[in-house]
C-alpha cells in the first residue's frame, strides 16, 4: 500500500462508557463521513452505554482516576462532582456545535455511518436488541466485525 493512499474506511471500537471515552470516537466517525470515508462504530463493554436507550442521555465525565482533570481523587469522588464537570464540558461542546450523544448517534447514522454492538458484551450485560437505540444496525460477533472492517483501518478507543 502506498503511504499516501487515501483512507477509504475506518472501523472504530468504543470500549469505554465515560464522556471522554465516547466523544472522540463519535467525532472521528462523523469526521470520516464528512470526508467521504466509510465509517463503522463497534460498541463493546461499557462503550455500549452510548447506544443504550436508558443510558445514552446520561453519560458522565470520569472525575475519579482522571489526573488530567486536575481534581484530587478524593474531591472528584464527592457526590455531584461528576455531574458538575459533565455540565461544564457539555456547555463547552454546545458552543462548538458538538451535539449531545443521542443526537450525535442520530447524526452519524443519517450521515451513513453504521452502528454495531458486540455480541459478547450484549450477552454479558444481558441486553436485548430493544434496549438499544433505533440506529443500531446489528449485533455482531468479533468475526463479523473483522469481516465488515476488511480493507479499512481499525481504531480502538
Amino acid at each position, binding site marked *: 500500500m502506498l503511504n499516501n493512499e487515501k483512507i477509504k474506511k475506518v472501523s472504530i471500537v468504543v470500549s469505554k462508557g465515560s464522556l471522554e471515552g465516547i466523544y472522540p470516537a463519535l467525532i472521528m466517525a462523523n469526521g470520516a463521513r464528512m470526508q467521504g470515508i466509510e465509517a463503522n462504530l463497534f460498541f463493546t463493554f461499557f462503550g455500549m452505554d452510548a447506544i443504550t436507550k436508558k443510558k445514552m442521555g446520561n453519560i458522565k465525565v470520569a472525575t475519579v482516576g482522571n489526573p488530567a482533570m486536575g481534581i484530587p481523587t478524593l474531591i472528584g469522588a464527592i457526590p455531584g462532582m461528576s455531574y458538575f464537570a459533565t455540565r461544564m464540558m457539555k456547555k463547552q461542546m454546545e458552543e462548538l*456545535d458538538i451535539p449531545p450523544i443521542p443526537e450525535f448517534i442520530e447524526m452519524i447514522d443519517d*450521515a451513513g455511518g453504521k452502528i454495531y454492538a458486540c455480541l459478547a458484551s450484549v450477552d454479558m450485560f444481558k441486553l436485548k436488541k430493544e434496549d438499544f437505540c433505533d440506529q443500531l444496525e446489528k449485533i455482531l460477533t468479533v468475526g463479523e466485525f473483522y469481516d465488515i472492517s476488511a480493507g479499512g483501518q481499525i481504531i480502538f478507543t
Partner: protein
Amino acid sequence: MEKVIAGYSVDVTEEGYLTNKGQWNKEIAEAIAKEIGIDELTEGHWKVIEFIQKDLAKTEKMPTIRRVKNAGGIETKELYRLFPEGPLLKATKIAGLSKPVSCV
C-alpha cells in the same frame, strides 16, 4: 493560483476553493459541481448553497452540518444525498467559499 472556470478567470487555493468570493457566480458554481461529480445543481442543492452563504455572512462562521440542519432546515440525510462523500467540503467549494476547518 489562477484558474479558468466556466470561462472566468478566478483565484483559487491548491484544492480549488475560491479565495475571492466576489469572483463567484452561478455558472462557476455549476462548473465546479460538475468537476466534483455533481452533474446538475437542483433546487435542493441551491437551498444548501444559499443557506451556507447567507449564514456565513450573518454569523461570520462557517455553518456545521448540525447548523445546516437546525438553522437551515436541511436534514442531514438529505445533505449527504445531495452532496455525497463530503457534503460540507463539496457545498462550500461550489458556493465559492473557503474550505471548512471545523471537526464537526
